[in-house]
Each structure stands twice: as structure tokens, then as C-alpha cells.
């Protein structure tokens, strides 16, 4: 199944939380807590991206308006996506642990890394070519 399809299946669990508890058996509480910490780490990543979006808009007034708004919007959208995906991945990991399956793999970290790299390159270009003012 495609990653999108698997994500959709995970999304259905959002609205039926009791179904997670019904499946399989309760894993060792330490594994659940580790999963929770991973979820929180992703949430912090999302919050950092959102904060970065605000910071770009507030602290780079010399940047040309279009570039500034574009980069800010990209960071804000990435932050929101990161938070939503954090819940989804947490649910899928929890379910996999209950069923004794392998943990889900994801290409999201790679995509996020590429996106952050692109933003960084855009900022370098903005400085080098003086897209300011």
C-alpha cells in the first residue's frame, strides 16, 4: 500500500480511539512512553518551524516582501504538517506495537530534510543576489 493509503488508514483511527485499545495486547509501558517522547520530539520540530515562520516575517524586514512572505508561509505550513503527521505516526506506531508488527517506516523525515534544505538555499540566494528591499 502506498504511504498515502497507509496514512489514510491511520487517520481513521483518529476518530475511533477506542479501536486502538481493542487491538492486540497492551505493550510494555516503557515502549509506549518512548513512542510518546518521539511524538513530542516531532511536535517540537513542528513548533520550531512555526516559530521560524514568525521569526522570518518579523526579523527580516529588509527581505523583499514576496520572498519574506513565501518563506514564512512555507515554514508555517511545514510546521502544521509536521504536527499533524506526528499524531498520525504516533497512532500507527502504537497500533503496530499492540499487534506485534514491525514499526511503520516513513519517507517524511527525508522530505522534511529536503524542504528545510531548500529554504536554507533560498535564504543563501536571497543574501547573495541581494533580494533585499
Amino acid at each position, binding site marked *: 500500500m502506498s504511504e498515502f493509503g497507509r496514512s489514510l488508514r491511520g487517520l481513521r483511527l483518529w476518530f475511533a480511539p477506542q479501536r486502538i485499545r481493542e487491538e492486540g495486547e*497492551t505493550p510494555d509501558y516503557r515502549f509506549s512512553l518512548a513512542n*510518546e517522547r518521539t511524538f513530542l*520530539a516531532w511536535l517540537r520540530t513542528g513548533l520550531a518551524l512555526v516559530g521560524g515562520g514568525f521569526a522570518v516575517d*518579523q526579523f527580516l524586514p529588509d527581505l523583499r516582501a514576496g520572498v519574506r512572505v513565501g518563506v514564512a508561509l512555507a515554514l508555517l505550513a511545514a510546521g*502544521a504538517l509536521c504536527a499533524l503527521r506526528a499524531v498520525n505516526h504516533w497512532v500507527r506506531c502504537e497500533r503496530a506495537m499492540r499487534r506485534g508488527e514491525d514499526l511503520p517506516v516513513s519517507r517524511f523525515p527525508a522530505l522534511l530534510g529536503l524542504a528545510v534544505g531548500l529554504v536554507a538555499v533560498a535564504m543563501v540566494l536571497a543574501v547573495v543576489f541581494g533580494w533585499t528591499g
Partner: protein
Amino acid sequence: MDRVTPVAGDEARDPGLQPERTRLAWRRTTLACTVAAVLAARQGLHEGLSGAGLPAAGLSLLVWLAFLGVAHRRIRELGPARPRPLGLGAAAAAAACTVALAAFGVGVVL
């Protein structure tokens, strides 16, 4: 406040201190949320106190308080030596705070 003395009958504490580490993770995340909310409030005030500025700042304060509430409840739940797993409601609420700040940011930036 979150130092809960183990109730009689509780099993020995996990030597890996998993509940403790999870509590600290919630604290770090609260800190990250505080920074994002402060930046959001600053953005609102930046637009000027008249018009949309003040309600915007109030909104980010509300989001921050909501996150604080979720984190506080979870930290209290992590007191016993064998805490229950995180509930879906708390996870979704914590993520919703991030999404709300981002949506608020999109509204202000545009």
C-alpha cells in the same frame, strides 16, 4: 508539584526513569510552545494595537494556555511508576495547538 510519592503497593521504579524522561520531554515541548506563542503574540502586536492586533495576541495566549493545560494533565498522569499510555485526545490537542499557531500565522502574514 509533579513529584508524586509512590503509593504503597507500587512496584519499584523503572531504573531507566522512563516516566521522568517523558515528563521532561513534555516540559521541553511546553518551552518550545511558549517561544512560538510569544513570537505569535509579538506578530499580532506588531500589526498595531488597534484593530486585529490585540485579539490576535489574546488568541495566541489562549492557545498557549490550552497547551499548558494538556501538558500539565499529562505530567500529573506520569506520576505513578507505571503510567497509562498517552491518550489520543491529549496527543490531538497538543498537535492542534501547533496547527492553530500556524493557521494564525498564515492569517497574519497574508
